[in-house]
């Protein structure tokens, strides 16, 4: 129908407009990474150059901060995924007193504003005298990552057939082996999804890190610092590189999966 076509076109224009708004600041960041400007606040366009990508490699502070962020994200992801997965499976299988309390506690880091969690953790660390640095950062990140891992694994557990575990034990595998050979592989997509989410949240965390970092700089916090004085384009360069890597990963996993699916008989 003609009106149907017109409606679709209008819809496509609208979606295009929204995507434009979503990607606009990113475009600005990427473009500015090629800006041959020298003086703060690095806003006017002075020509195209790859210089800043080179200068990025000389910016020890920035690279250090980025390394910290990666390490922090990796450690937090691993810890939260392990604790979260095991917990999700345990909560699914068993009934015990206090289950509803834990359930409620899980929602708190998700629902309350990040700043509240941040200052609460700061308060804890100050009182108990936990050194503020990488340690406190890891503890903080794991705290807000665990609930998301659990929710993702839970979603995958919904509809999980327990009798496959019973079959495994019937065939001679003990609880531990059953867990590793049967339970984990079946839950893998949920675990993967949760881990990915945890990683993403940790890499981009600003507010909680702001209060719990002590002197350790993470990449977002370094960016925050440089915003005050004017962000030099090597920061843009690093951000552009990160974006490229993530997009590449997504494309690879998506097409890799598709290729693998096609080859299945």
């Amino acid at each position, binding site marked *: 129908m003609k009106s149907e076509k017109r409606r679709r076109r209008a819809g496509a224009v609208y979606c295009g407009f929204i995507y434009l708004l979503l990607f606009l600041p990113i475009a600005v960041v990427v473009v500015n990474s090629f800006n041959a400007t020298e003086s703060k606040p690095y806003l006017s366009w002075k020509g195209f150059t790859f210089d800043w990508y080179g200068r990025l490699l000389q910016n020890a502070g920035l690279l250090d901060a980025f390394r910290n962020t990666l390490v922090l994200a990796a450690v937090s992801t691993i810890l939260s995924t392990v604790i979260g997965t095991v917990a999700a499976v345990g909560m699914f*299988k068993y009934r015990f007193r206090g289950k509803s309390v834990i359930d409620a506690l899980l929602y708190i880091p998700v629902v309350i504003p990040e700043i509240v969690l941040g200052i609460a953790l700061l308060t804890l660390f100050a009182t108990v005298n936990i050194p503020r640095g990488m340690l406190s950062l890891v503890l903080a990140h794991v705290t807000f990552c665990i609930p998301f891992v659990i929710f993702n694994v839970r979603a995958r557990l919904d509809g999980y057939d327990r009798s496959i575990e019973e079959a495994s034990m019937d065939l001679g595998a003990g609880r531990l082996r059953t867990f590793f050979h049967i339970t984990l592989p079946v839950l893998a997509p949920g675990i993967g999804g949760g881990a990915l989410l945890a990683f993403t949240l940790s890499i981009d965390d*600003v507010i909680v890190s702001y209060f719990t970092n002590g002197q350790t700089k993470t990449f977002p916090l370094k960016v925050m610092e440089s915003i005050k004085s004017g962000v030099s384009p090597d920061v843009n360069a690093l951000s552009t590189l990160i974006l490229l890597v993530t997009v590449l990963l997504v494309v690879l996993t998506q097409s890799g999966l598709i290729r693998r699916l096609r080859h299945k008989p």
Partner: protein
Amino acid sequence: MSKRRFRSSTAPVLTMVGPVSLWLVFFVAVPLLYVFVMSFCSIDENYNVVFRFTLANYRGLLDVDYLQIYVQSILIAFFATALCLLLGYPFAFLISRTFKSRKTILYMMVIIPFWTNSLIRIYGWRTFLGASGWLNQALMALRLTDSPVELLFNRGATILGMAYVLFPFMVLPLYTAIEKLDQSQLEASADLGGRRGATFFNVILPQTVSGVFSGCIMVFIPSLGYFYVADILGGGNSDVIGNLIERQFQSGNNWPLGAALSIILIAVTLLLVKLYQKCGGDIQSLGV
């Protein structure tokens, strides 16, 4: 499925659920309790926290300047939420239904921007909207205006920034709710004489209302606390409650006051969540 699902055996439970329980108690329950306690404490000359009970912090919250910021904060959060909802609902609907053949990639394209650091993206907006920013440079080059248009450092910019950062949190729950709609019900409504408007109000909206509430909560609450958006785009002219709290823990050095502010923020959050549950909202759908 096996009926012996709820077999209670202590050893496996402790090993599996123990770690997370301990973690939640130590790193969520205890700190929040401590904040609560601290909100009734005082500070000495060296800005150290002293365990002397006082209600001064809560009284201080009623300061006129603070009240103004609460109102401002709620207004900013409200408009950011409204903006996200108005822009996000049709968007989620279009992706889920109209363009459903491409929905995976369209959905991905919403998520991808959020893998770039949010600070740098907010800064990107500043670069674009600033007085010597790109938009103004373009406008002046096109002779549409003589002097730079002041787009930044006001509440509007902060609202835009909040809406921008929190947009996916509105789109996700909306998308989930819209996905669950049964196409044949929409057809039935049309079949029975309902034009598009009637179908929307009678069939679509009532069944996606939970997604709407969920999305609104996931945008409104963080908006009250995102101090860096208010800083970068609002430039101190559009402080939100988060800014007040941040100040007490950094330059203000008045942790108990900051704690009191945080307790108020938690109270507001709990109120909204309870309201959401009362209206039939499912707490499970928040955050996934």
